[in-house]
């Protein structure tokens, strides 16, 4: 669940706002694609939603508790991300010095899920992303597609209310991209989470429930 209202953002010393009075919502279980030209502010919007960049005005309500991340301080934003948001990046960002299982366990540790549940959740998710038996493998030994599967498992393991994905298939070949996307959508729907996927790919966008196009003038 994500509700954005009157959201405005202007970079310091910039002539015009990145976006102004932006408003939209993503319902529980809904997957929305966010498309737009390069430089239009898609990543900035995603950063604002995740609390990584401050918004100038407006509200961003996240999760079942509808917490406004704009109003939270840095530590509370981190806590909200840990509890309610899952991330999938174009560059995978899997920690190379932790095993696959440890990588997936990071959100569980940060969100305070009882340790007794960790192994079962990790093994179940690894099986569902097609990586059963990979728990003790090290990331440098995995392919790009496998790394992105690990990232998807990590994004879902703590059962967040919102998944934010930034070009999740951008670094993959078409066949692997297709497989990974299918997996991501399937798992998000299975968890009944909301998802906002930033993409340049029409193919990816078409497979989402709804498409939002960000333009310099606002959402279309």
């Amino acid at each position, binding site marked *: 669940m994500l509700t954005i209202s009157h959201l405005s953002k202007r970079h310091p010393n910039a002539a015009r706002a990145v976006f102004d009075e932006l408003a939209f919502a993503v319902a529980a279980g809904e997957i929305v694609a966010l498309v737009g030209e390069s430089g239009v502010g898609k990543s900035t919007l995603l950063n604002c939603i995740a609390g*990584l960049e401050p918004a100038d005005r407006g509200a961003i309500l996240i999760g079942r508790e509808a917490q406004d991340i704009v109003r939270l301080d840095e*530590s509370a934003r*981190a*806590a909200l991300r*840990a509890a309610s948001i899952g991330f999938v990046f174009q560059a995978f960002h899997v920690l190379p010095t932790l095993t696959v299982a440890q990588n997936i366990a990071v959100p569980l*540790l*940060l969100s305070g899920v009882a340790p007794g549940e960790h192994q079962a959740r990790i093994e179940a998710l690894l099986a569902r992303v097609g990586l059963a038996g990979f728990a003790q493998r090290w990331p440098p030994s995995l392919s790009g597609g496998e790394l992105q599967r690990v990232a998807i498992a990590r994004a879902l393991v703590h059962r967040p209310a919102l998944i934010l994905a930034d070009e999740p298939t951008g670094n993959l070949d078409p066949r692997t991209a297709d497989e990974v996307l299918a997996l991501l959508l399937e798992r998000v729907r299975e968890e009944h989470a909301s998802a906002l996927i930033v993409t340049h790919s029409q193919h990816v966008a078409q497979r989402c429930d709804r498409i939002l196009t960000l333009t310099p003038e606002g959402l279309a």
Partner: protein
Amino acid sequence: MSRLRWQLAWWLIRAQFLTRRTATALAMLAIALGVALGYAIHLINAAALADFSQAMKSVQGEPDAVLAAKDNAARVPLALINEIARDPAVAIVAPVIETRVRVDHAAGHTADQAAIHPGAPVKLIGLDIFSAAAVMPGLLPRQDGGSIFEDGVHASPALLARLQLKVGAGVTLTRGAARWRTRIVGELPAARPGDLLLVADIAWVQARFGPPDAVSEGRLRLMPGTRPASWRESWSGRLPAGLTLRAAADDTQRVSNISRAYRVNLNVLALVALLTGAFLVFATQLTAVAQRSTQFALLGVLGLSPRMRLLQVLFEGLAIGVPGAALGLALGYGLALAFTRVMGGDLGGGFFSGSTPVIAASLLPSLGFFALGCAASLAGALYPAWLNRVQPLAQALKTGFAQRPPAVHGLRQRPRRTLLIAIVLLALAALGLTRLPALYELPLAGYGAIALVLVLGIAAAPLVTQIVFGAFARRALSAPQRVAVQNIVQAPLMAQVAASGLIVSFALTVSMVTMVSSFRLAVDQWLDTVLPAPLYVRSKGMPLPQELLAALDQPAAPFARIERTAHGALSLDPQRPAVVLLVREMRRADAAARLPFSGPVVAVAADRVVVWISEAMQELYRLAPGQTLRLPLLGREVDTVIGGVWRDYSRQFGAVVIAAADYLALGGHFEVSDLALWPRRGEEAAAKAWLAAHAAGYGLDIAESSEIRALSLSIFDKSFAVTYALEAAAMLIGLFGLAVTLAASVWLRARELATLSALGFDRAMLTRAVMFEGALIAGIGLGIGLACGIAIGAILTHVVNPQAFHWRMELTIPWLQVLLGAALTLAAGVIASRFAARLATRLPAAQVLASAQ
């Protein structure tokens, strides 16, 4: 922090250690070294002090007070002892005579040199058996039936072993003109293993070595319920001039004070080692944070709070510090054990030579040193931790480590003017500290000034870098040079960290070289003045044999000139070591020619007694030339006039010279212990032979001035050997810091360098660019380090040495050594940057460009 967060922290710490083994191990070792040095110094000194205290108790017992003369030539009258004994508050007074004698076999030959060291006289204690039983039970002889004190002396087991004699053996005891044949009639079973002692009945000693109506000391036990301090206070006003009542604890305190400045100096050196450890932790953690910035950013995005990102790096610092400090304690303990086995309890200052201490670790100091190691490690991790906390997550996730973090909590990047003002303020503060006097007789403000100069050097690095490289950037440069200069300007943090390591290490090296060089030159010049005669004879702690002195007075003696000196000791303050009294055969008018005066020589009226004091005495007792000085001489207080202050590098706690004629006029007895001899022209060889023949068998030190000079300088060089080792270690750590930070900088720019490679930079050009960058950074570090080093050298020479050891000297900068060192370090820096250059060119450019990170 929850258990789950701890688990994550532990995973990250383990990963960090596994991926950066060498750097982590080196940082850990550096912390261990700092802790080990400090802990070993503490253990050795504590053990030596305990040993000394035990030895004092063994010989002196545990009296409540000791009545003694302030001048070692004076005595305590027996009448006074009897008067004090009648005081109802006094339980018992044990009169004691202490003297030193040479022990010869009954046949008349001195004991074999291998058996007993010549020139090391033995302490002879005369005591009254009944009072000694109450106050000094450790000195009681074995009672084998019959009278305890038969006509003879009792020897400690250690002395018997040294002399290779048994009870019943005949010996001759000699002191000056007094010589007595006697017998060893028993042992001293309670004497400590190393004690070389003879004990005899006080009347026996008095009868042979005098004086008959006085003793060396009275050791007192007070009645139960009497407060020793109040009782001493009540008597001190009634004591005759020249006598003092001191607490037994004063002796231990005095010995502790003797070595305090030396210990503090050694501890400062240990602290320097610890600081270099902290710097290594800093360099290691900073590069670790920089290299893992994307990972930390990811963790931040996943929900690791800013506080936890800061704590994580601090935990990693602590994870280096805890094992480092623990290892340091173990190393320090081992070092102390090994050191005391080989060298005894003396740390090199000569304050505890001869002691055989037992090393014992105690909990509180061990915990203190452990905490110090951990604190140094934490301090090193503090700035990298803060940088990790303020890294902009989105940017770090995309482009890696931001060397210029954004403003946080209102802190803005400092403009050049603010930096300049801060530098000027720091310089003024450092200058102000150098003007402060010693605190608690330690140069604490001087050490503070040194720390400020180092901070100043590091703070000045960005400004100097901006000025130098701003000018550089405007010049026409080759492509590799342009890349190097631009990188330093664009990535200032890594360049400054690398330069900082060199600034600190080179500054410390230059300062120590400058101080040692100034000191050595000063000692060399001083030796010229204090060793004017070609030959010297010395008898340690005893008067020279009368036969030798009489022979020297004969016309057949091949000497053109002889200068005699007697030694004494004056106690001006019970808690300070005694001042050395030098009674010298010299005319008042010749003083300026005979002593190395450091200031004006005052003309003193002929009817006044003139003395010349050393610089140490001037500073310790705040005296000035022309001032009247009341000295405890020959059992009374004598008003003297200070005729001048002379330089003395051998007696740290002060010395005072009085002309022999004046001393004799005061009623003193001139017991010559040192001779300066000028052989007749052309009879130098004959003079040496004559001396060898006449001094044989007395265990005297005979040396030519050149030998004394060589020995003195050799001792000087040895005492600074540890300093040279620390300098070398500091330079290696500085170079390691340069190599590590350059490597990290190159790692962070892997994609930029790969792009340059794709654009036409070949391997040689990339190597040249990185090595040029290393040379530029090393140049900046060495330049600032040189300036700071000279400033610190001046502080050490003009502030620390005079305040800690009362040694004054001129500043001499050994330019050749310093510049050669700078050139070598620069070359080593360039070689170290080859390591980073290899890293830059190792990976194929295509692979780097294709990689996601």
